């Protein structure tokens, strides 16, 4: 039973020092402290983590599928934005 006062949190875990926090899933909890404990119980029991972040799912502003034309298509005809577009002079050899 998930009661009304429970909020959905997204969980991010950094598995090793030097790596980024990675999204691993979500938990329901009453507040962020409790979310942190549940994140620990649900996602780090096999010692996957050195650091956990939780944030309210509702605080995420996400791009929509419908936006994909305006978001990503304009890049398709601008190949010069990719490094592979440029031919290296032979003198440079391996960069």
């Amino acid at each position, binding site marked *: 039973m*998930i*009661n009304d006062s429970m909020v959905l949190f997204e969980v991010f875990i950094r598995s090793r020092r030097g790596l980024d926090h990675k999204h691993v899933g979500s938990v*329901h*909890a009453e507040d962020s402290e*409790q979310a942190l*404990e*549940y994140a620990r119980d*649900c996602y780090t029991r096999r010692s996957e983590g050195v650091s956990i972040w939780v944030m309210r799912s509702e605080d995420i502003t996400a791009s929509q599928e419908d936006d994909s034309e305006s978001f990503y298509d304009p890049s398709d005809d601008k190949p010069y934005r990719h490094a592979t577009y440029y031919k290296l002079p032979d003198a440079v050899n391996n960069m």
Partner: protein
Amino acid sequence: MNETAKQTTLDYTLRLADDSLVLGHRLTEWTSNGPFLEEDIALSNVALDYIGRARMYYAYAAELSADGKTEDDFAYLRDERAFRNLLINELPRGDFAYSMVRQLFIDVFNSMYLPKLMQSNDKTLAAIAAKGIKETQYHLRRSRDWTLRLGDGTDESHRRMQKAIDSLWGYTHELFELDELEQQLVVQGIAVDSTKLKAGWLTHVEGILAEATLKRPEDDWAVRGGRSGYHTENLGHLLTQMQFIHRSHPGCKW
């Protein structure tokens, strides 16, 4: 270690093992019955911590045993009267408030008991305690949180918490009593002198209860007997559940 010393250390180790196993089993009863999925997983994790701890104690008991007993023999083939757990561990799981209050009382107790056991002259017991204390710190964080949340929550949750506290309080006195066997081991620097932990436990628990707007009951009744093998009727039922597979398929492996 001579034979008598081995036997007393074995008896003491079994007591600690029985405490962990019986409470761990009670907690597994929440698995698939938790109030919601996240808490279900969290409680099952705590249960696993206790059962893991019980296994370490039983394995050590098996090592000390003169007649080649195994950890399974201790867990599955002893009857009620041979179990030496403190009574508070065997009481039925009750509602969620009841289970959380019991965890709070035991977690605060363990948070003081295990650091002392870490200083035991028995190196194995000290090592098991060192592993257990980290788990206990986390358990206490959870049970303290729940006590505050439910005690200072709705009228209904407050009422259930207070009821749980009142019905468990009389079982807490036994935590701080030593019989002859433990007194003897305290003198040898092996067992923990739990009589010395009571004042600190009370201060800690009273602080949390006050913060949670809950009342500490009067000390007007006490139940004891677990360390001598005198149990409530609940342990027998628990053992039939826990032991029947092993007893009906002796030596079964899966």
